[in-house]
């Protein structure tokens, strides 16, 4: 009788322990996944706004997304957006979205990028796919750039 009661109490405690542990692990996984996506989004924005890409004149290549380009950057100097690079990126939207994602380290996610005026009212360039209302977790990154001598917002939404 004592043994049975002890076993019952032990089983009850173990069950509670497993339930609590499971819920903690699920929360850790969620936080890790969110942080991983946020880090990737941040690094992609850094690549776009702080580098020229590799090769630096990638926008001039005729078939610029077919393995010749190893990194994508949109600026001449830090934050100084190059309209030609932006146009090349937008032009490749339909055919090279996945390749560009991979070059930015975002192969696990989807993303949309827009270059807007400082008030956010006018969109000058738009690339990629923006999330719908049911797209799950989304990381939004807003950075500043300079386009034709004026400050603009480079808005990124990464989700998946």
């Amino acid at each position, binding site marked *: *009788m*004592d*043994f049975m*009661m*002890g076993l019952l*109490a*032990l089983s009850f*405690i*173990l069950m509670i*322990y497993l339930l*609590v*542990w499971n819920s*903690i692990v699920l929360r*850790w996984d969620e*936080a*890790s996944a969110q*942080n991983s996506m*946020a*880090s990737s989004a*941040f690094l992609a*924005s*850094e690549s776009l*706004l702080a580098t020229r890409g590799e090769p630096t004149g990638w926008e001039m290549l005729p078939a610029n997304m077919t393995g010749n380009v190893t990194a994508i950057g949109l600026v001449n100097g*830090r*934050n*100084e957006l190059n309209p030609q690079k932006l146009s090349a990126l937008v032009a490749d939207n339909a055919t090279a979205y996945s390749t560009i994602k991979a070059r930015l380290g975002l192969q696990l996610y989807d993303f949309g990028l827009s270059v807007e005026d*400082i*008030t*956010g009212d006018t969109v000058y360039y738009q690339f990629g796919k923006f999330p719908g209302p049911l797209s799950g977790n989304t990381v*939004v*990154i*807003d*950075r*500043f*750039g*300079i386009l034709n*001598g*004026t*400050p603009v*917002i480079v808005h990124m939404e990464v989700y998946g």
Partner: protein
Amino acid sequence: MKGFVITLDAVIAISFFLFAIIIITSQLYQPRSPNDLYLKELTLDTITVLVKTGGIDQAIEGNISSVQEVLQATPDLACMGITIYNSTGDVVASTVKSGCNYTVGLDMQAAAASERFNQENFMVQSESWFKAGSD
């Protein structure tokens, strides 16, 4: 009865042990958030853009509207302030994003840049922090 007491004692001991493990492990595991890095880069972006587009020069001349316009365009979760010092360390211009206040104990990110205007050197300092309750 004695057996029951011994079993109960063991069960209580095991439950304490297991929950102690849960508490210790949950305290040790701190997922690293890139938010601070993002705030740092946003601070650098702001100062770079203001220096390169002439917003800082305008602020030195007394027109701080361009600086305020850029500060207002920062994400809602971020607060930011810009201060410009002359070569003797006096404040030439200073502004903070509206709805934000400097508070003691804030976890801040800072960046600085130099600017030369009308043959005089200036130091631009930008400080940013997360709005209370946004992180």
